[in-house]
């Protein structure tokens, strides 16, 4: 019999809000991970320009001193802080730390692993990222 696999694919990662804050954190973690990977590749490309001499290096550095360059750097700061802070939460969770204890489930069955400590950590990670971005903006665009 013919079958349609009906697998959601990448679009299954979209619309994370339907599954709550933890799914939003998962989505942001993926997004920031990919963003940081792109930054890493660009950074290697940028720093490798030094092999072409001082002038090429200076020219490349000038690119980061533009308004667009500053905005990109600010986004990188935000991605880096969120990915680090949320990554620590996820790593601890992966070891079974802070995911609650098994017990008899009672209606309305609130999952213990999706507890307020995790939600607070996710919100704190977002908050820290926002603060770091604001600080980055103040340093890069100040004076």
């Amino acid at each position: 019999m013919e079958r349609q696999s009906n697998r959601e694919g990448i679009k299954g990662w979209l619309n994370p809000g339907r599954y709550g804050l933890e799914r939003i954190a998962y989505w942001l973690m993926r997004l920031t991970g990919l963003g940081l990977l792109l930054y890493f590749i660009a950074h290697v490309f940028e720093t490798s320009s030094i092999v072409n001499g001082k002038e090429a290096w200076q020219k490349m550095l000038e690119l980061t001193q533009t308004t667009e360059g500053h905005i990109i750097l600010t986004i990188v700061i935000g991605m880096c802080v969120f990915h680090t802070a949320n990554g620590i939460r996820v790593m601890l969770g992966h070891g079974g730390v802070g995911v609650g204890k098994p017990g008899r489930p009672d209606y309305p069955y609130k999952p213990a692993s999706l507890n307020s400590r995790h939600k607070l950590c996710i919100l704190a990670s977002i908050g820290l990222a926002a603060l770091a971005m604001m600080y980055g903006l103040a340093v890069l665009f100040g004076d």
Partner: protein
Amino acid sequence: MAAITPKLSDELPSTIVSPTSSVTLRISKFNPKTDSSSSIEEFKVPVQKWTTVLDVILSVKQHLDPSIAVRYSCRQASCGSCGMKINGKPALACYTKISELNSSVITVEPMNNFPILRDLAVDFTQFFSTHKKVRPYIIRDDSEISEETKELLQTPKEVEEYLQFSYCIKCGLCNSACPTMATDSSFIGPQALAQAYRYVADNRDAGKKDRLKIIDDSHGIWRCHFAGSCSQVCPKGVDPAMGIQLLRGYLLGFRK
């Protein structure tokens, strides 16, 4: 005594009848033998405050379109047959009341990450095979039948270690909600992993080493990234996300 018992004719005018409203039910239709892609059919259906999504689907099937393929059985969230995507989120149709959806348009689709057999009915072959893969039964050399007591005693604390995970009704909602299942067709899935934990945490079981070996695979437990969607949609409070993280604790040396 007869004087105070109301007759049926006396009772009828005072019987409280819930006001009837109507919703638009949008059903995804797909027959792999004849269709190249799925289509949506719309039906206007009267509902009352206690009407469930399954009631509405069966009403449409009975009165408007008998060709609708839907799997159901117990109608009380015990058999796990009527899992489907309701307004974009996996849920049991018998366990979801129209009134709690807060919408006059209800869209029902087959669960994602399962092959479609027809309309709302999906194929559980891979699901059951991954469930069997983790050896979901007590493994031990002796048998309680050969013991004098004929039972294996456990303290309430020992039972609580795995009790909630034994409530799994194998409805498949967790696998449907899982973002890893959405992209990795070989991933063992939250249902099987939670069942692996259920038996690993049972102190009567001696198959921990074997089970940990089965799940310690590139498409096994390491593909779970703790998005928690499986626990979010579980209708029985199993909390697969917790089971998976605790199970990983054994592999990482956090638990013995």
